[in-house]
């Protein structure tokens, strides 16, 4: 018999975890939406942003800067690093591949992944660096209704709050700004966008920069949760089923996909896992994704592509 309190706790915890997956998935969506490139390097970008932030923060604090000044400067430094990265990727990787097919661009991002992972660790270190930007303790809600209450982690709530702000900001950016509309035009057709005067190099720099900044935001939350270290790159694997379910082109889809994956895998692990050996949550997320693929190949919120043949 499953206790209602336990079920609610797992469900809420799963939904909250899903929002954290969405933070990483958003970076994928942004770049795909704006350039048609599936960016395999998003996990590596989270690592780079996290390392730049935590190492600069440590250095500034060690040199006597007040914490809040160190945080502001550290975030600024990491943002500059992501801007430089965006420029380098546009200039030397994606730029020269204009009008190449999607698979070529995808392969190039695999190369970018290895370079970013190696360079980030070479420059900033390959250790495990603690980051404490948000509280990580928990609230125990409704303890008068359920024995022990329902646990809600404060970091998860912060993650949800930040994801909400990001989604709102990105929606405004894509729908209401000239650059946002240009990004969507470039995603539809590189050559057509160029022919009407859209500076494709600049647009791609902007989109990689925005994805880099989203990676930085994800790094602040995940770095607080895990410490900043190489394993943070594995979050990209958690984001993949989110993308398949939500759709590669939808910002709200990334959030909804995250919620479905988070809740689904946690409920499966806690309530089904013990019957089939446990450790099922990784593949269970992909089972969910497969089920969605069978019904809606473009994902729940993805654009349905109709091609004339």
């Amino acid at each position, binding site marked *: 018999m499953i206790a209602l309190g336990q079920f609610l706790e797992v469900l809420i915890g799963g939904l909250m975890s899903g929002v954290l997956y969405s933070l990483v998935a958003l970076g994928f969506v942004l770049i795909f939406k704006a350039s048609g490139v599936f960016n395999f390097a998003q996990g590596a970008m989270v690592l780079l942003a996290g390392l730049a932030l935590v190492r600069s923060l440590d250095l500034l604090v060690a040199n006597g800067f007040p914490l809040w000044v160190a945080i502001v400067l550290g975030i600024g430094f990491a943002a500059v690093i992501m801007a430089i990265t965006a420029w380098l990727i546009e200039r030397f990787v994606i730029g020269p591949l204009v009008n190449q097919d999607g698979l070529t661009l995808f392969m190039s991002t695999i190369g970018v992944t290895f370079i970013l992972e190696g360079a980030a660790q070479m420059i900033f270190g390959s250790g495990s660096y603690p980051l404490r930007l948000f509280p990580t303790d928990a609230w125990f809600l409704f303890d008068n209704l359920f024995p022990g209450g329902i646990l809600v982690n404060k970091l998860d709530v912060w993650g949800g709050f930040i994801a909400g702000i990001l989604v709102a900001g990105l929606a405004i950016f894509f729908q209401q700004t000239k650059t946002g509309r240009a990004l969507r035009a470039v995603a539809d057709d590189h050559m057509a966008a160029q022919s009407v005067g859209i500076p494709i190099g600049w647009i791609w720099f902007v989109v990689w920069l925005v994805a880099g900044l989203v990676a930085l935001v994800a790094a602040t939350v995940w770095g607080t949760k895990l410490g900043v270290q190489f394993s943070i790159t594995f979050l990209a694997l958690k984001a993949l089923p989110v993308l398949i379910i939500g759709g590669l082109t939808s910002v709200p889809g990334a959030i909804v996909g995250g919620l479905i994956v988070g809740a689904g895998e946690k409920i499966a692990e806690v309530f089904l896992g013990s019957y089939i050996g*446990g450790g099922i949550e990784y593949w269970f997320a992909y089972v969910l994704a497969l089920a969605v693929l069978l019904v809606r190949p473009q994902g729940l919120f993805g654009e349905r592509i109709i091609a004339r043949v």
Partner: protein
Amino acid sequence: MALGGKEARENKTRYRKNGLNEEESYMVRNKLLLAAAILSGGAFASPAAAQSEQFIPILSYRTGAYAVNGVPYANGVADYYNLVNERDGGINGVKLLVEECETGYATDKGVECYERLKGKGPTGAAFFNPLSTGITFALTEKTTTDKIPIITMGYGRSDSKNGAVFAYNFPLLGTYWSAADIAIQHIAKELGGADKLKGKKISLLFHDSPYGKEPIPMLEVLAKKHGFEFTPIPVTHPGVEQKSQWLAIRQNRPDYVLLWGWGVMNGTAVKEAAAVAYPREKMIGVWWSGAEPDVTPAGDQAAGYKALMLQHGAGKFPVHADIEKYVYAKGKGLSEPDKVGEVLYNRGMVNAMLGVEAIRKAQEKFGKKPLTGEQVRWGLENLNLSDARIKELGFEGMLKPIKISCSDHEGARDGRVQQWDGKSWKVISDWYTANQANTEPLVKDVSAKYAAEKNIHPRDCSKES
């Protein structure tokens, strides 16, 4: 070595001119050393192996999800070999030729490294130490066929303690079955006696891999014997997401949680325990879950967490003075100086020392020359380090005597418990010795099944010398 002492000294001077402090200069130089090694095909050895040198491969992982733990261990191993060359001119004049191969803790890469390195040097590899139970499982048959010993100090196959069946496996100092027994002994002591275990709940949070699964049969035996309720809880590689597991633990409220993690899984487990308010004092990690990188990411939340010790812990001993004098003073050390003496660095040194002493022992029988793997196997099987010899080697206080034999490839099964106080590890227990009355029936049973399955005829240890 890719960079000699002179070049390294010059580098050091150059870094100072650039305004870097000594520690930063070490870090930069180490990266240069590693980069040079990688560019030259991953080799720390000179390109042409001299015919008078003993070849020793190092299977390491300086990249990937487990690099946080793999790097300090590999540094300890490499620095000790370097010490033997720099201080003693090798083993009885036979210099050590060392080459690292990056496995990333992946079994396929580990096997590739093995195949690439097993025949190197004038006599082939002296032994392998893969630092991965998964790679150990994959290599066990190969090393037997190739007659190269595989040293798995504190890890690997627990049944390979039985040298009559596993002639080439050496799980020195302690198997996971010994570790499980020691952990339960400590819990019993905390509870006030073994009889108090009855009815208690003990969960095992384990890395879902051959490593993490290894203690389960022993814990099942102990649960049956003592009457406690045992629940294994797997965590998928690499262990960055453990919310489900800890919510289940919060509901089940076990009296103790044993942690069999590696890499990011350990720190995440401690943080998740804090998030669900599970007392860290009731968590006991295996000796691979008890190093500095396992607790520092959790900060103050890790205070109170306990872990087994594979005899040694952190700290500096007489051998470290030699390392500093003969290796770091010459600019040849691989670690950042402040990390020399950390738990995993020390473990790497101990591991390297046992291999070196096995070669020294084998030289007594086969001569002071480079030896084959088969000859080194004899040295390992006849290794007998007394207190006096351990003191002579500078490891006094880190190790107890160890004696290997044909029937006992483990050699010693002692451990202690340490506790993280928020800043450092503190030893909180006396010595425990794994109870062979618990472990031996399982060793015999499982190794006999393995022998039958692989058509191995166990050696008669009474006839071995």
